[in-house]
């Protein structure tokens, strides 16, 4: 007979240590997988987690990859903390990219310091408006935000497909599904010559800082926290639930939109069908791995970014299948959720009583 009991006293330090434990378990599990695949586990792990960041270029790439993940996850933390399940960050990212990219095309061959800020702002607004659709439908029509936000991802993807194939395709591009390369004034400034790390990282850092202030120092942050802990309490306290739901979705969407516009004006430099390798979905893992905490999310985004880089390096040097990267992401989440369960619940093994036999 096994009995599961809720624990009442969960220590705060252990709560923040379990993600670290999950990472160690993942490394261990990964080593076993490499061993089964016939690779030397120590060597494979070294190529996976150390080689990619052993030079400046690698570090810069890590930040390039972590920037959108961190931004989106920060936004998602507002939603998740208040029990609003925005699963459609990918769609908000793409829509932000579409709006920002459209503005960049309007300003094609147009110089001026104001061009880039306008593009970035419009991308954020685009993502924000797109995220308001599931929020408004939830608050006024009682729809399920998980379904609506998820389905809107496909809407955004198809809209992007339509635009880059049709009206926005490069007139000199032989009908290939991509727009022109944006002009220099529409591109994120590169921070160091020869590296791809761009000014988008400052946007991310500012966002992290502002989120921390909003979440921990403002009335709104307090409302978000209380609603997350108990909706009934929030209602009893007289919080305006509807406004808060719309605001958290707006913040979340704006962050995803910023990530999208950062990608197209940063490393990509144009709109095409593949502006995001599912950053919006991976960011969900990042948000939970980071404990929905701004600082935690920074670390989580770096670790998850590293699994992408590592998968490439391990394939280049050892020909390890590239999908091990996704296996690692899955394992991290699995071990985190598993240790959370044991953290919040006690499992008691009881002997069988006579009358149960």
């Amino acid at each position: 007979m096994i009995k599961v009991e809720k624990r009442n006293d969960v220590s705060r330090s252990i709560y923040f240590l379990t993600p670290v434990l999950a990472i160690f378990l993942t490394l261990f599990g990964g080593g076993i997988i490499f061993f089964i695949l016939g690779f030397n586990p120590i060597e494979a792990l070294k190529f996976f987690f150390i080689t990619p960041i052993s030079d400046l270029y690698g570090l810069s790439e890590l930040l390039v990859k972590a920037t959108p993940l961190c931004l989106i996850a920060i936004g998602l933390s507002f939603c998740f903390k208040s029990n609003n399940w925005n699963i459609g960050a990918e769609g908000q990212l793409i829509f932000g990219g579409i709006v920002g990219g459209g503005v960049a095309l309007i300003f094609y061959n147009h110089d001026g310091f104001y061009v880039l800020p306008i593009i970035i702002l419009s991308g954020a607004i685009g993502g924000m408006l797109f995220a308001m659709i599931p929020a408004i439908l939830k608050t006024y029509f009682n729809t399920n935000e998980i379904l609506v936000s998820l389905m809107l991802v496909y809407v955004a993807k198809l809209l992007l497909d339509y635009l880059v194939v049709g009206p926005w395709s490069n007139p000199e591009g032989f009908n290939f599904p991509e727009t022109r390369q944006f002009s220099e004034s529409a591109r994120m400034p590169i921070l160091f010559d020869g590296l791809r790390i761009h000014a988008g990282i400052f946007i991310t850092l500012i966002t992290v800082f502002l989120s921390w202030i909003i979440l921990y120092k403002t009335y709104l942050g307090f409302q978000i926290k209380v609603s997350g802990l108990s909706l009934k309490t929030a209602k009893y306290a007289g919080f305006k639930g509807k406004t808060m739901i719309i605001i958290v979705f707006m913040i979340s969407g704006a962050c995803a939109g910023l990530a999208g516009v950062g990608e197209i004006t940063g490393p990509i430099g144009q709109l095409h069908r593949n502006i995001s390798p599912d950053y919006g979905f991976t960011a969900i893992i990042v948000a939970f791995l980071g404990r929905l905490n701004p600082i935690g999310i920074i670390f989580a985004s770096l670790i998850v970014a590293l699994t992408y880089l590592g998968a490439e390096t391990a394939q280049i040097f050892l020909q390890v299948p590239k999908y091990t990267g996704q296996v690692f992401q899955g394992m991290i989440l699995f071990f985190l959720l598993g240790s959370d369960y044991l953290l919040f619940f006690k499992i008691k093994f009881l002997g069988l009583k006579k009358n149960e036999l």
Partner: protein
Amino acid sequence: MYKLFLRSLISVLFLLGFSLNANAEFKVGFVYVGPTGDHGWTYQHHEGRNAVEALGIKTTYVESVPEGADAERVIRQLAQSGHDLIFTTSFGYMDPTNKVAKDFPNVKFEHATGYKREHSNVSTYSARFYEGRTLLGHMAGKMTKTNTIGYIASFPIPEVIRGINAMTLAAQKVNPDIKTKIVWVFTWYDPGKESEAAQALIDQGADIIMQHTDSTAPVQVAEKAGVWSFGQASDMQRFAPKSILTSIIDDWAPYYVERAIAARDGTWKQQDTWHGLKEGMVAMAPYNSAMGSNLVKEVEQLQKDLASGKVHSFTGPIYDQKGNILVAEGAVADDGMLAGMNVYVKGVEGDIPQ
């Protein structure tokens, strides 16, 4: 102090030796857009890589590299880790390939199906798949009972439109009543979408299915529905043994071997390659005997004539959908026209998505 100096000297020499050693070995890198097991596009590039490896040349590949921001990093990493020749095997790698090529003038780059050669160390290559489509059109025109050919198309780029037109022209030559119905799926690889498209075309009366996408789904749907089909990129016969009449095979191996040897021996030069049946970059899988020995003989003869240049896929008169003349009687379309082809010929139904 002396010891420290000695130690650092040794480590510097060691590092130097290591890096020289790394440079000494000639290596070839490949960047794939899909998984090596797609049985289509990437699978065939991987076969090409195997042929290079069989020469005793060391090769590396990275599969499923998204065509977005990640491509540049992967290409750069291959260049940085001592690869001397890098094949980037999808259109979406065009700008990243040229960007990396600028920073690694001593590394040679080969980009498939693109048109940008911004630096002297970038070559481009593609195959004249449309010659294979001409053969498919001939068979389709003869085999169809409903006079309707179903065509699953990926993106409205010249390469795909060229294939549709070449097929339709050849089919019309043997069967003037032929109609080509097209479903655009806007993907290169999506078995779900491809099977839906195949089913939709069959429901509209198509009894021949062909596709310019990479999965085996369309031929499998055709097999189930009992209509004829053609394999794409690799020999897909075993996925639909009854239904497949033949497959167009992309055979990159001879080109990869030739370019790898040239790069190793220092004779590599920038070029734009467009090879077809003649050079063997486009090859045909064995013809299905179900179409009758007469038709097999006809098609084999046509294949020889296309390879020798006696027959050209785009010989005039060719008209567009509105009846305007595109290629005059007796003339053949030149490569410039083929490269930028963006109108359907007469007999194709619907409009090109714009």
